[in-house]
C-alpha cells in the first residue's frame, strides 16, 4: 500500500472552517507546496496553528494575505507584518503562546494527555484565565492539549509506508504535529520504497502519517 498522492488530492481534504497545524519555523521546514495549494483553493475560515506566519512573501504568509485564516495560534508573528495588521484591525483573532508551551500542548494532544504543567508564563499576561497548580512548592500553569483536523508537514525523506526522516533545523514542530491531527499530510523531498529506510533512522513512525506528496525539487547546497 502506498500513501503517495497528488498535491491536489491531498489538499482537497481541507474544508472551510477546519483547524490545521503547519510545521516549520520562519519558513524552514514548512510545507510550501501544500500551502500554495491551500491558498490557491481559497479555503476560508481556517484556524491555523503554527510557530509563526512565515516571512511576508513565502507560502505560509500567503495563507494570511489571502485571508484563508480567521483564527491563529502562534508564538511569533513579527516576520509577517500582514498578520499584525489584520490582528490590529480586528480581522484576525490571534492567540500568542510561548513556543515551549505550544509544542507541549500539541504533544499532549498527540500523547493522550489531559494537559501539561509549565512554569513558563507565571507572573505574565499568559497566565490570565488559566488554572495554577503548586507542585512541590513550585507554581505551574495548566495548559490544555491542542489538536487539529489536518496537519501539513515537511520531511526530507519518506518510505511509501509514511516513515519520515527530517533534515537539520527543518525538523522543528513537524514530528510533534504528526501525532496531533486526524489527518496528516507530509510533503517530502525524497520518497523511497518500503524497506529503504533503516528502522533506526525513522524520526516519525509511519503510522502517524496518512498521505505523502512528492515535493518538486529545489536547490539543496549541502546534503550533509
Amino acid at each position: 500500500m502506498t500513501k503517495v498522492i497528488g498535491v491536489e488530492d491531498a489538499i482537497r481534504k481541507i474544508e472551510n472552517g477546519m483547524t490545521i497545524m503547519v510545521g516549520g519555523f520562519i519558513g524552514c521546514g514548512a510545507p510550501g507546496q501544500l500551502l500554495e495549494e491551500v491558498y490557491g483553493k481559497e479555503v476560508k475560515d481556517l484556524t491555523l496553528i503554527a510557530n509563526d506566519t512565515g516571512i511576508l512573501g513565502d507560502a505560509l504568509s500567503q495563507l494570511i494575505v489571502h485571508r484563508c485564516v480567521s483564527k491563529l495560534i502562534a508564538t511569533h508573528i513579527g516576520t509577517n507584518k500582514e498578520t499584525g495588521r489584520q490582528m490590529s484591525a480586528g480581522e484576525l483573532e490571534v492567540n500568542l503562546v510561548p513556543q515551549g508551551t505550544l509544542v507541549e500542548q500539541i504533544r499532549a494532544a498527540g500523547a493522550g494527555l489531559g494537559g501539561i504543567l509549565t512554569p513558563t508564563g507565571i507572573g505574565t499576561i499568559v497566565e490570565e484565565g488559566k488554572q495554577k497548580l503548586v507542585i512541590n512548592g513550585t507554581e505551574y500553569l495548566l495548559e490544555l492539549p491542542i489538536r487539529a483536523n489536518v496537519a501539513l508537514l515537511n520531511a526530507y525523506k519518506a518510505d511509501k509506508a509514511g516513515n519520515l526522516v527530517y533534515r537539520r533545523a527543518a525538523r522543528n514542530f513537524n514530528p510533534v504535529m504528526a501525532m496531533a491531527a486526524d489527518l496528516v499530510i507530509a510533503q517530502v523531498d525524497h520518497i523511497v520504497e518500503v524497506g529503504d529506510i533503516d528502522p533506526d533512522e525513522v524520526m516519525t513512525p509511519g503510522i502517524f502519517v496518512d498521505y505523502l506528496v512528492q515535493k518538486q525539487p529545489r536547490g539543496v547546497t549541502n546534503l550533509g
Partner: protein
Amino acid sequence: MDKEARMDWLVKRVAQEFKSGDVVNLGIGIPTKVANALPEGIEIILQSENGYMGVGPAPEAGNEDPDTVNAGGQYATILPGGCCFDSATSFAIIRGGHVDATVLGALQVDEEGNLASWMIPGKMVPGMGGAMDLVVGARRVIVAMEHATKNGGLKILKKCDLPLTAAKQVNLIVTEMGVIEVTSKGLVLKEIAPGLTFEEVQACTEPILYLPE
C-alpha cells in the same frame, strides 16, 4: 570611549561570564555578537531553540543551506559534534534546566529581576517566541542591552510597566555603562565601564544602585 567602543566593551564583558562547556542560548542582536568575543581558550556550546546544538558561524556566500537557519531565520551552520532535535526536545532542554545561560536583550528590567522584552501594547506585538521559556528555564539569565533608550529614556526601572516576559528571573544586566547584578537586596553595580563614574551610571538608572560589599 565612543559609542562603538562602549558596545564592544559590553559584548566582551558578557563573553567573560562563561566557562568552557557551558550550554548557552544567545538572543538576536547584541547577544549574537557574544559568540565572536569569547576569551581565548573558552569553548561554549550554543543552542538554537529552533532545534539544534552547536551553532557555528554564518555560512560563506554560496554555501547557504535552507534547512539550517538560526532562531532569527538567518542562514547558519552546525559545528562538528552538533546535533539536531525537534521543538519538544529543544524546549525540554530549555525548560529542564539544561541551558547554563541565556543572553537576551530587553525593553525594561527592574530591581526585582523582572524582564519586559516582548511587547509594547498597541505598538509592537511580535509575540514572545521562545523568550518566556528561555528566561524561566535557563540557569542564568543575562540581559545585554543599551543602558537607556535612543531618546534617553530609562530602561532599568524600579518596576517594569510593560507586559513581562517573566517575573524575577534576571540575574545579571550588562550594558555599555556597567555590570549590574540583581540581588535580594537590590541592584549591585559590580563593574563600571572605563571612563565612567558611579554617579554617571546611577543618573541613567531609576532604582538605587549599591556598590559591592
